[in-house]
């Protein structure tokens, strides 16, 4: 057996389960997202006013935040499980994991900022 696999643990099992739970949530929310922004757009394009009107109810931003959170988690945890398959060295695993965590934090921050901004902007 490869010496790198000596220390076995259940550490990965939570990620495995959460990947499937987030998948089920995303399956519903992504269809909702496509229907709202890509299929029904009242006329030719998704306009600023259309986006603002939806972004300023009490439930829509919360749903958007849940969508952002699950999508980022699912995506970056997915990249992590791919990287895990090819990276056995402890050093590189730590480097990759930190990098994904940083990217995730930045994108979560940027996305949340967008949701708050759209919620607080004045509709014309």
């Amino acid at each position: 057996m490869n010496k790198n696999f000596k220390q076995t643990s259940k550490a990965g099992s939570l990620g495995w389960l959460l990947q499937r739970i987030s998948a089920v949530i995303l399956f519903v929310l992504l269809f909702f997202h496509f229907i709202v922004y890509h299929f029904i757009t009242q006329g030719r394009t998704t306009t600023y006013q259309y986006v603002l009107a939806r972004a300023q109810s009490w439930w829509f931003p919360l749903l958007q935040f849940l969508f952002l959170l699950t999508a980022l988690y699912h995506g970056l945890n997915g990249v992590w499980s791919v990287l895990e398959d090819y990276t056995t060295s402890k050093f590189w695993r730590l480097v990759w994991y930190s990098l994904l965590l940083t990217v995730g934090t930045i994108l979560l921050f940027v996305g949340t900022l967008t949701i708050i901004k759209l919620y607080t902007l004045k509709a014309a």
Partner: protein
Amino acid sequence: MVKKTRFYDFTYYNFIGSWAWILHRLAGLALIFYLSLHIWVINSLTQGEAVFDQVMTFLNSVPFKLLETGLWGVILFHAFNGVRIVMVDFFKGSLVQKKLFVVLIAVAFILWALGSYLILSHVQWRVG
């Protein structure tokens, strides 16, 4: 001596499951790349109505709408193969995983055609 298996060794790709596995990964990697861009671009669109509507009109041109149908396709493949993965992992789907793949991809294809029709119906043929 056990031969090391590599994902690019195509002798293992005689099976539907192998293809589903590698395509699911590639689609997933493409989607997280797109998601990163998407979050970034949408944030820059909160500067006001003029900028937003100008960019949206630009994105309503034929090439971007075709890319959008492609995105919809990649999403549907990943989502419906994902349903197969959940069924295999939690509901004894492994017994019928090949049939599941064919049926789910057929459903995904129908939804792809429907969605693509809606996406392309929004194309602005003449800008301005």
